[in-house]
């Protein structure tokens, strides 16, 4: 393993992913922010490639980033790697802040998004009956209100530019509207969550997400399929 020095910009980077995974998009956005060229390999999770199985033998999941033949798995680990390996690259700036306390806060919000916010959102979307759906919806809104307060008047969670927390929450900006369409209920309204509502639109129309989004119609169809299971 080479030590010290910046990773050379022309070293080959590969990303194994699937078109529908929000975790894959988080990595794509991170690579885009750093201006890192990569080769994208679409995986069929029902028929995993030999490459995926050998690169991520433990979890057999995407995304997997491959750099100089070495795999990095788990999207949160990959994003931190991208930030550190290409430290001074890209007009997109640092993904994590410099200050240790701010870094800890960003990492805590990532855990919040994953462990506290996502479960009720999923529950709301998949709830079998109206009562359960309403209960889950209110639980999700309660956590979204916590985010609303954290965001406040900032453009992005990281401040003026997109950062780690924005990348971690980013998929919600396109998933929530689809869930709302499918369930016929709203979870993020301008009245109750004005800052978050504005952030969603802003995130989708700004770099890095702007030119890197999954095909939304196709995604909606796949969600419809998931809900009737």
């Amino acid at each position, binding site marked *: *393993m080479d*030590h010290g020095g910046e*990773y050379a910009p022309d070293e080959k980077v590969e990303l194994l992913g699937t078109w529908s995974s929000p975790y894959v998009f988080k990595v794509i956005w991170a690579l885009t922010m750093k201006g890192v060229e990569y080769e994208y390999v679409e995986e069929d999770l029902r028929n995993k490639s030999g490459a995926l199985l050998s690169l991520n033998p*433990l979890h057999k999941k995407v995304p997997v980033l491959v*750099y100089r033949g*070495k795999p*990095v*798995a*788990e999207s*949160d*680990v*990959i994003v*931190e*790697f991208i930030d*550190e*390996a290409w430290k001074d690259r890209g007009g997109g700036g640092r993904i994590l802040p410099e200050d*240790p*306390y701010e*870094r*800890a*806060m960003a*990492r*805590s919000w990532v*855990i*919040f998004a994953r462990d*506290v916010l996502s479960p009720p959102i999923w529950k709301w979307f998949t709830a079998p009956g109206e009562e359960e759906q309403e209960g889950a919806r209110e639980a999700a809104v309660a956590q979204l209100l*916590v985010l609303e307060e954290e965001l406040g008047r900032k453009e992005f969670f990281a401040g003026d530019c997109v950062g780690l927390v924005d990348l971690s929450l980013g998929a919600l900006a396109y998933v929530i509207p689809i869930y709302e369409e499918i369930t016929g209920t709203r979870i993020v309204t301008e009245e109750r969550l004005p800052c978050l509502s504005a952030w969603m639109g802003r995130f989708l129309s700004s770099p890095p997400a702007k030119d890197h989004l999954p095909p939304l119609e196709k995604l909606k169809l796949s969600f419809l399929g998931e809900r009737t299971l």
Partner: protein
Amino acid sequence: MAGEDELKLLGTWASPWASRVKIALHLKGLSYEYVEQDLDNKSELLLSSNPVHKKVPVLIHNGKAICESLVILEYIDEAFGAIGPSFLPADPYERTIARFWAAYIDNKLAIPWAQAFKANTEEEKAEGLKQTLAAAEMLEGVLKECSKGKLFFGGDNVGYMDIALGGLITWLQETEELCGAKFFDTAKTPLLFEWMERFSGLDAAKVSLQDGGRLVEFAKGGGLR
């Protein structure tokens, strides 16, 4: 860092997650005030420091609160980078390995183990045990790889992975009876067993790990449920 650093750790004596933080602070040679929390009667300080999760451990550094044991470990490593040993390696790729396995320890070892000793059915217990013992075997292999014949996952010195697993040692040992299986088994995972003995012998571990006798009684009494 310039000036006086005020460090306060909110924890519970039984918590292996709090042990992780104590170990890290000790390795860095940092003094701190430990404040025992009563989770059945949460203090104002805990509620205001960790309003979202209301859990321990919480590290308060000069009035700023940091939660989640692994986040705290990285914080200590970064905020006190100039003091004592570094927990994470300098190389970005090697850092991914340490972080990946620390997450594995939390998700594939600690969670299923807790499931095993809290289990209400034999089935749940068996499932939890199966996953945990598979994790032990996996970590045996990782130790061989990462340590490259040296003493710790971090090499010559204790690193992030060592602390992540080390904090759990007493908790894993004292709940063996409840689980009906040994996590550290010298026959099945000899390297891991040696590592455990070596880690337990460190000063940082001796002052940070829980009182085994007290923990086993507490666990049997359902205190860890």
